[in-house]
């Protein structure tokens, strides 16, 4: 009793932070945990990026030069796994941890201890995944999609470690998502009704639902891979009455909602930033909410568009083609609303807005190539070529990652109390923008011409384009070191002090608290008009 009462007393010291490493290991503070998530995601982004550099170095010229094909395969596999599960998802979870309580006027996340647990699982999960690269026989080499029988009959023994590391990162994601969803349902300040919630909160609510729905399915998929490989089951083996295509169905039932998990929070971020720098309220708020929900629901009935060439009945191909095309309607609503928000606005071009504008244009390009891929007959040409690689890097790098960068620039002054280094930020933006297009745009061309993905060598006619793609890749990688320098400066609290509102046009609860945000905020809930 006395112990617990002491804790309560302890908490009331407004800005008292525990010191040293124990603060970070044992924390229950949403801001600490958000910071941990964001730094972890950034480190993973650099590691996964280094693997992409290996891939681009090997592909700089035709022929096999630097690494052996098995290692190349491990690089493409682990690059994908790290960027999806280690960089993009934790970065969004970090942003949710920091911002959702501030945006809805809550004192913290609803389940603070579980919050800390879900973070600390991640470094361990990726330690397992990365260390498996150094084992005899190497790490996972079957692509991030771990299709059977590559991951069962033909994989090496480190597959077991891969399976269990995916299990625990799934547990982490589910716990993180439960926390976000319960926080939003249960912790909103009085007056913060559903249709007053900032769109970042809305999109994360829907994302959290998707996470809870599909991460367990991924757990089921890896479990079946494990038993097929080690315990003699034949889920994915025709000799036992199973089917390798079954793997693809289960995987993509998880995988397609998963790609929206990586883009819906981005939509939320852009919907926060564009109104701020256009100095106008968001155009079509309600339609944004409904569009997000529609995209999420549709994501459950489009999975087989990843499998058009696996030999499904024609009726199924048609169904999945039309269902997929339907998604472009709510997505179009969103792009329209962002543009309409800017229409006749007093626009200024601070760094978050620059990234948001780049997002709108480049994500739309990725969306259009997605629409092309949705068309079953032409997908037979595009399938497993660099056209697909170009498509999903446009939506994930210039989409998800650009939105995360926009979010970091947008909220960094609130986190640190200091403005970021404007010069470095501009260099970062323009170098990234130019190099990322040099990197990914020509992939459309080589893809349409038939260059297959995940192969360490290619036909001679692709040599010129690949050289430029690699140069773009190295430049994009180096540009991120500018970002690293900027973040180190910011975390050392260098720079101009930021005001509480930070941006002239910024609206919302998070801009009403001091900059930097105190350790504990909204211990008494604010009234929302």
């Amino acid at each position, binding site marked *: *009793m006395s*112990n*617990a*009462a002491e*804790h309560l007393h*302890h908490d009331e010291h407004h800005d008292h932070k525990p010191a040293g490493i*124990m603060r970070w*290991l*044992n924390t*229950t503070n949403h801001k600490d945990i958000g910071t941990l998530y964001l730094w972890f995601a950034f480190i993973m982004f650099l590691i996964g990026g280094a693997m992409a550099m290996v891939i681009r170095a090997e592909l700089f010229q035709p022929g096999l030069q630097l690494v052996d094909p098995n290692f190349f395969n491990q690089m493409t596999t682990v690059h994908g796994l790290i960027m999806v599960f280690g960089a993009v998802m934790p970065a969004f979870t970090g942003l949710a941890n920091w911002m959702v309580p501030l945006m809805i006027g809550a*004192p*913290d996340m609803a*389940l*603070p*201890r579980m*919050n*800390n*647990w879900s973070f*600390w*699982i991640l470094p*361990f*999960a990726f330690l*397992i995944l990365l260390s498996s690269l150094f084992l005899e026989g190497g790490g996972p080499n079957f692509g991030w999609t771990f299709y059977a029988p590559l991951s069962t009959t033909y994989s090496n023994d480190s597959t*077991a*470690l*891969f*399976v*269990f*590391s995916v*299990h*625990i990162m799934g547990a982490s994601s*589910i716990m993180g*998502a*439960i926390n976000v*969803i*319960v926080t939003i349902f249960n*912790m909103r300040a009085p*007056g913060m009704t559903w249709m007053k919630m900032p769109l970042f909160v809305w999109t994360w609510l829907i994302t959290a639902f998707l996470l*809870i*729905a*599909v991460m*367990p*399915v991924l*757990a*089921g998929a890896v479990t*079946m891979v494990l038993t097929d490989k*080690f*315990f003699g*089951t*034949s*889920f994915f083996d*025709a*000799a*036992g*009455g*199973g089917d390798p295509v*079954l793997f693809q169905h*289960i995987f993509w039932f998880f995988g397609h909602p998963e790609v929206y998990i990586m883009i819906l929070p981005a939509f939320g971020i852009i919907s926060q930033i564009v109104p701020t720098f256009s100095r106008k309220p968001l155009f079509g708020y309600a339609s944004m909410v409904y569009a997000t929900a529609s995209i999420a629901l549709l994501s459950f009935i489009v999975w087989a568009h990843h499998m058009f060439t696996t030999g499904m009945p024609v009726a199924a191909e048609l169904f999945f083609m039309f269902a997929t095309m339907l998604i472009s309607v709510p997505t179009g609503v969103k792009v329209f609303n962002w543009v309409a928000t800017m229409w006749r606005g007093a626009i200024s071009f601070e760094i978050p807005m620059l990234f948001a504008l780049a997002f709108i244009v480049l994500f739309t390009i990725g969306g259009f190539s997605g629409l092309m891929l949705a068309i079953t007959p032409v997908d037979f040409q595009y399938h497993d070529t660099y056209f697909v690689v170009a498509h999903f890097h446009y939506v994930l790098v210039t989409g998800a990652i650009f939105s995360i960068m926009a979010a970091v620039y947008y909220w960094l002054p609130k986190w640190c109390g200091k403005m970021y280094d404007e010069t470095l930020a501009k260099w970062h933006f323009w170098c990234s923008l130019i190099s990322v297009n040099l990197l990914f745009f020509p992939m459309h061309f080589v893809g349409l011409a038939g260059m297959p993905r995940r192969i360490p060598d290619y036909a001679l006619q692709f040599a010129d384009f690949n050289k430029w793609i690699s140069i773009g890749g190295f430049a994009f990688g180096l540009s991120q070191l500018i970002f690293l320098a900027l973040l180190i400066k910011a975390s050392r609290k260098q720079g101009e002090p930021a005001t509480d509102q930070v941006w002239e046009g910024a609206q919302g609860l998070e801009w009403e608290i001091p900059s930097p945000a105190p350790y*504990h905020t909204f211990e*008494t809930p604010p009234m929302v008009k």
Partner: protein
Amino acid sequence: MSEQSYEKYYVPASSPWPFVGAVALFLIAVGAGNFVVEATKGKDGYGGWILLTGILVLLIMLIGWFRDQIEESMTGMHSAQLGRSYRQGMSWFIFSEVMFFGAFFGALFYARMIAVPWLGGAGNNAMTNEVLWPGFEAIWPLVQTPGGTTTEAMGWYGLPLINTVILMISSVTAHFAHVGLEEGKRKQLTLMLGVTILLGVCFLILQVEEYVHAYREMGLMLTSGIYGNTFFMLTGFHGLHVTLGTLLLIIMFFRVIKGHFSKDNQFAFQAASWYWHFVDVVWVMLFIFVYIL
């Protein structure tokens, strides 16, 4: 959000247990990842010991975390709003479990409706059957696989039927235990909860007996093709969940005896009983789709 006055939301002070839990999961994942290889490929190694250590650390973490949690709850630090957070959290957790079973039910339906018929030549797959698996006949339960493994099908009468009745009754007794708690009838609460636990244990014992019977006398094994795969994976994961549910109920039993719960403070009890109802519903699905149909 209609409250006029606000109870302070309880944000717990820093706690070592989440980090300990992460270490535990790390040891479990590393241990299991090595143990699986060592056990199935006959290699030497420490995987099993690492796994065991991980499970031990996890148990220590659970005990420590729950102890803190119970202490805080008993000293009245939890507000009604926090209670709602716990209940919603538990509901979403159960939803995630439903989706986990969904993956395996999906595999079962796909195998029955699509994979096996196609191997037997259905649709436009006549040549698949002719050339790749000549003589294979698509039937369910799949007692002979395309590769030639044979087995026997598990009937629904006998043990499975008894087990179904046991679990259905246990759901009812769990409900009446909760009614006892709501109405302050301690005797009904302890009695009904005790009966629920006993029924759970009976179910598990009979399930083990069924597995022994399947392996020894029927030749129905995990390796018996897609029928055996789906049978053992679905009933096996369900059995693990019943085990966990029974453990939760046993913990609740001791807390009931200590007088921990009241009409207004009963989240843990509710969570355990929701979990129990959930495993019962999963069993009914299993009974219909795995055993009967």
